[in-house]
């Protein structure tokens, strides 16, 4: 049997990929074996599909627990990817030969957390790549040893210069294998116990795959694996028999796994995202690869020139000055730096230093931008539609296509007009995905500026969303079905406030069968609820639904019914709920009262408003209720026009009586004035009541209530405060007793206003303001 040709590569090294292609062409193999999960063998032909655009990753997952998974990412410049394409294009048999994930994903010891951890735990190759990451202990850094032995700062740059920048073929791989063999003999056990075992099992499986290919009669087998594994596969480290390997692989537990292709991003390929076998600058490697795909035609200096030109264009796009002269100087600096360091070509390090010094004037911020946008890059891959998908994913893809929503990694903004069917459908999809915990879009709060028929979303498709889609698949096979089921499941366990938010979300997502179920839950919860504040919390979101539901063409009859019931319960329970509150609870209750009031005024249902105002009246009138709450109720009644001016003056006078505890009085004032002090400016009588009260406070008491009053007044707008200050400064003697009328007349005489002419416009103005005739007459009497 012929010995296989083993090519030890660095994952995602463009130089490795180039050398590998060259070596493969020379070898003309009849079978190619690649380090990767054998479960995905069936997916390999898709690699040459026209719709397949790296970066992509092989996702191997357990259908029963989709979050237990492993990713094998590939970029265009990954040697494995090039090897696979090489084989598939020539109709050569190509197979993955790593230890099946069926054995690796079964391990109950592995923490079942988010996929990020799993990647490292499951796929964190301890071979040629784990380096320069501060967390990786030095004994896991074989390249680092070699690099330092050769006098480089780290293994990365050593490999870069010794291997990636070279263009020779097969002889290079022999040298790599030899170097790794020497390294493995020097440091036979670089890993801990369990990792060592896992590594030796992986290598045993690889050897087994090679042997079975040999048995099938293949003559020229090409084996592509991480450099670290190469000597173990050529058996340079001592002969390993079939029996040894069988013993290692015997009786491994097995789980059911499935595999598929998922789109990947350069950002995730970068080491900084915590992915073990990553590369620090995929964008740079992409640049190297696209400039010199598989031969060395491009002049070396072209690499630097083109890169720095890209940098210049990026800076210009960001409105930073960067002329061609800058590029010229940066290229020259990079080249002389490389010469100083005795390197044939500037590497990314030199180019970054040149950009920093020449183009960024020594400032770090633009350089960070260059790193993020260029050195790492933002490219998002795509997979062909034929790639096996979970049914839910398939449904989602279909919807995305029919709704013409592009899947992109970077953020984009989507402004939806809900009056158009397309906008409405898109909105439904995004809301449904949110309910499925697939946060593709984030709803932006644009206030009421654009009206209620607009929604603005920020879309960004993170690769982990693909995993979340797979996780969500347990709820159903279509987006609508899955979302509805998940909501019902949540509703059955939710408390009242969460339920009402759910109702809102369900209506936004247009899930009719879920609405009924959620409302049922809500109704029964409301009936059982003893806590009025919970009911009050539930009300505003529901009111929103009733008020704005029509835009979305949803049926809100059922919600209206529930709101009716809620208002009745709240109105009854309000007064008791407001008694004996401490300061904090009173503040919370005040806020609740305000928001319920706002919600009911939005709904404009007469009966509801009536019963609500009756309840407010009770609270306002009752003794022994916290000042802040009763003050607020008074104010709400005043705003609603339910109390006339005399009554308000009476109540204010009562609340601010000297007999009252000053702190309680200040609290009342806080509740009454919260938000706006305009009433004080408009009604002289209220101003006087307040004035009298402040004047009556003794020094020590004044100091005590000052913080409270200050807090209240600090909420007013600057304009209001200025007016009040002016008001307080003018002597009040003329006003007191005589009322404002006399003072007003005196003022007009000085300014020479024609009062009669002025009065003619008053009725019209008042009508604009919606005041009744009675008030008009009173006003003109003044």
């Amino acid at each position, binding site marked *: 049997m012929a010995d296989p040709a083993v090519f030890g590569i660095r994952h995602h090294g463009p130089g490795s990929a180039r050398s590998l292609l060259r070596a493969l062409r020379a070898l003309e193999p009849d079978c190619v074996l690649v380090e990767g999960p054998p479960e995905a063998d069936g997916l390999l032909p898709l690699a040459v599909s026209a719709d397949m655009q790296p970066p992509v990753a092989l996702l191997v997952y357990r259908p029963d627990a989709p979050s237990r998974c492993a990713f094998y990412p590939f970029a265009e410049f990954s040697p494995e990817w090039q090897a696979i394409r090489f084989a598939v294009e020539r109709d050569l048999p190509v197979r993955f030969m790593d230890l099946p994930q069926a054995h690796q994903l079964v391990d109950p010891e592995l923490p079942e957390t988010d996929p990020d951890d799993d990647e490292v735990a499951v796929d964190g190759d301890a071979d040629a790549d784990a380096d320069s990451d501060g967390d990786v202990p030095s004994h896991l850094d074989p390249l680092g040893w070699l690099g330092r032995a050769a006098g480089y700062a780290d293994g990365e740059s050593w490999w870069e210069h010794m291997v990636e920048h070279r263009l020779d073929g097969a002889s290079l791989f022999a040298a790599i294998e030899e170097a790794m063999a020497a390294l493995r003999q020097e440091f036979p056990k670089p890993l801990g116990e369990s990792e060592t075992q896992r590594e030796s099992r992986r290598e045993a499986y690889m050897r087994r795959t090679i042997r079975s290919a040999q048995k099938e009669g293949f003559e020229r087998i090409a084996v592509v694996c991480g450099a670290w594994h190469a000597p173990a596969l050529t058996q340079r480290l001592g002969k390993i028999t079939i029996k040894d390997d069988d013993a290692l692989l015997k009786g491994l537990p097995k789980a059911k796994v499935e595999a598929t292709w998922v789109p990947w991003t350069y950002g995730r390929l970068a080491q900084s995202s915590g992915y073990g076998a990553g590369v620090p600058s995929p964008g740079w490697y992409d640049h190297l690869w696209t400039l010199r795909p598989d031969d060395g035609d491009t002049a070396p200096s072209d690499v630097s020139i083109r890169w720095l030109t890209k940098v210049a264009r990026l800076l210009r796009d960001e409105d930073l000055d960067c002329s061609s002269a800058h590029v010229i*100087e940066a290229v020259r600096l990079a080249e002389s730096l490389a010469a*100083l360091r005795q390197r044939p070509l500037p590497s990314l390090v030199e180019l970054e230093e040149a950009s920093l010094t020449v183009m960024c004037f*020594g400032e770090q911020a633009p350089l960070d931008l260059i790193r993020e946008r260029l050195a790492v890059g933002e490219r998002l891959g795509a997979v062909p539609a034929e790639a096996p998908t979970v049914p839910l994913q398939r449904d989602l893809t279909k919807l995305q296509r029919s709704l013409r929503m592009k899947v992109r990694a970077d953020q984009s903004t989507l402004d939806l007009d809900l009056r158009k069917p397309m906008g409405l459908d898109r909105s439904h999809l995004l809301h449904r995905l949110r309910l499925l915990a697939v946060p593709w879009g984030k709803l932006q709060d644009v206030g009421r500026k654009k009206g209620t028929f607009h929604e603005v979303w920020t879309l960004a498709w993170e690769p982990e969303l693909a995993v979340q889609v797979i996780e969500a698949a347990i709820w159903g096979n279509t987006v609508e079905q899955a979302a509805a089921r998940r909501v019902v499941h949540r509703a059955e366990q939710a408390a009242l406030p969460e339920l009402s938010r759910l109702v809102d979300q369900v209506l936004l997502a247009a899930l009719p069968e879920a609405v009924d179920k959620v409302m049922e839950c809500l109704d029964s919860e409301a009936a059982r609820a003893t806590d009025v504040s919970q009911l009050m919390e539930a009300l505003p979101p529901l009111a929103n639904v009733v008020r704005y539901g029509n835009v979305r063409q949803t049926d809100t009859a059922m919600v209206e019914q529930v709101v009716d019931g809620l208002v009745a319960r709240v109105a009854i329970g309000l007064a008791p709920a407001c008694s004996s509150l401490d300061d904090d609870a009173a503040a919370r209750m005040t806020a609740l009262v305000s928001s319920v009031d706002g919600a009911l005024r939005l709904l404009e249902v007469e009966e509801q408003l009536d019963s609500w105002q009756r309840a407010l009246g009770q609270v306002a009138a009752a003794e022994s209720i916290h000042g802040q709450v009763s003050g607020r109720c008074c104010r709400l009644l005043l705003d609603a026009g339910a109390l006339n001016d005399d009554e308000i003056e009476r109540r204010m006078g009562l609340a601010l009586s000297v007999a009252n505890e000053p702190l309680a009085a200040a609290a009342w004032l806080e509740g009454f004035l919260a938000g706006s002090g305009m009433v004080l400016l408009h009604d002289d009588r209220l101003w006087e009541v307040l004035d009298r009260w402040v004047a009556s406070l003794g020094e020590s008491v004044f100091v005590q209530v000052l913080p409270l009053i200050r807090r209240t007044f600090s909420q007013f707008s600057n304009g209001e405060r200025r007016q009040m200050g002016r008001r307080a400064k003018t002597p009040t003697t003329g006003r007191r007793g005589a009322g404002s009328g006399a003072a007003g007349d005196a003022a007009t005489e000085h300014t020479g206003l024609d009062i009669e002419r002025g009065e003619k416009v008053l009725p019209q103005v008042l009508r604009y303001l919606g005041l009744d005739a009675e008030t008009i007459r009173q006003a003109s009497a003044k």
Partner: protein
Amino acid sequence: MSEDTSQDLLRLHAEDLFAEELEHLQKHDDHPRPKNWHLSPWAVSQYVLGGTLDSGFEITPKYIGNRRLVEIAISTLATDRALLLYGVPGTAKSWLAEHLAAAISGCSTLLIQGTAGTSEEQIRYGWNYAQLLAHGPSRDALVPSPLMTAMDSGQLARIEELTRIPADVQDTLITILSEKTLPIPELGTEQQASRGFNVIATANNRDKGVNELSSALKRRFNTVVLPLPSTLDQEVTIVEKRVREIGRALELPAEPPAQAEIRRVVTIFRELREGKTEDGKTKVKTPTSTLSTAEAISVMNSGLALAGHFGDGQVKALDLAGGLVGAIVKDPVQDRVVLDEYLETVVKERKDWKDLYRAFREVG
């Protein structure tokens, strides 16, 4: 310069102080040299960063810090772009500039000190008026600036505190840096720059906006930002080395201070500068003063002088406290509060810093 006179000088130029090292480097330097450079770029970086020659001769490090920054600076000078060293006061900008000039041109004395009063004549050329009146305008009557001299001889010129120079005077440099020539309209000639000519300018961050460089001028400089030392150990090494060197030069009678003492001073500086303690557990306020490494060195030196002349020759906490207060309290009201807070919350709590705390209290 004879041995006797150099003994009397307060401070020697870099090229004189390290003449032996430069000589050895030159002898062993087999890398290609740009025209008019005394050393190859490779040897310059070795001179600045230190190392051992093949002959076993030891080169002392002049700049302790990021090797890459030094390499960028040298490479810049090898191209025809000028070099701008930028950073907060006391980050060895002028120090590095002097040594680069000494190593590359063998001469660090072609220096223009930038001030608010720097005029165009100081950058271009002036006139010897006696000559001018007696014989009319001629090359003999012309008094060249250091910059012009450097252009003539193909050496490096240094401009200190570039941003202090008024903007219109700064712009004189544009022609010199881009056309590499200095027109002399009075004589109808020009001074063209020989190969090897270049400019090293320094400017500090704190002066930002004093006379910001015009973008035309900025474009002619490569900017290298010199950082404050990144680790405590690095900073202690720098201070220790400089204190010993200066102590020797000034012939201070005291023993060089123990590393522990230096470490304390550097720690105080770093903590106040960064606004938190070295262990990262306590936040402290930051004073208005810069607290650079250079100031730590001067605090140690004044402590050394105090101990030598008035104490027992051993640097004690009391010798340092005065200098520390002087360095930290630049604003008598705000910084005083910062220091007091730091003393009460940090210094007092450290068991082995009791003597320092008492010394501070004594100094007041």
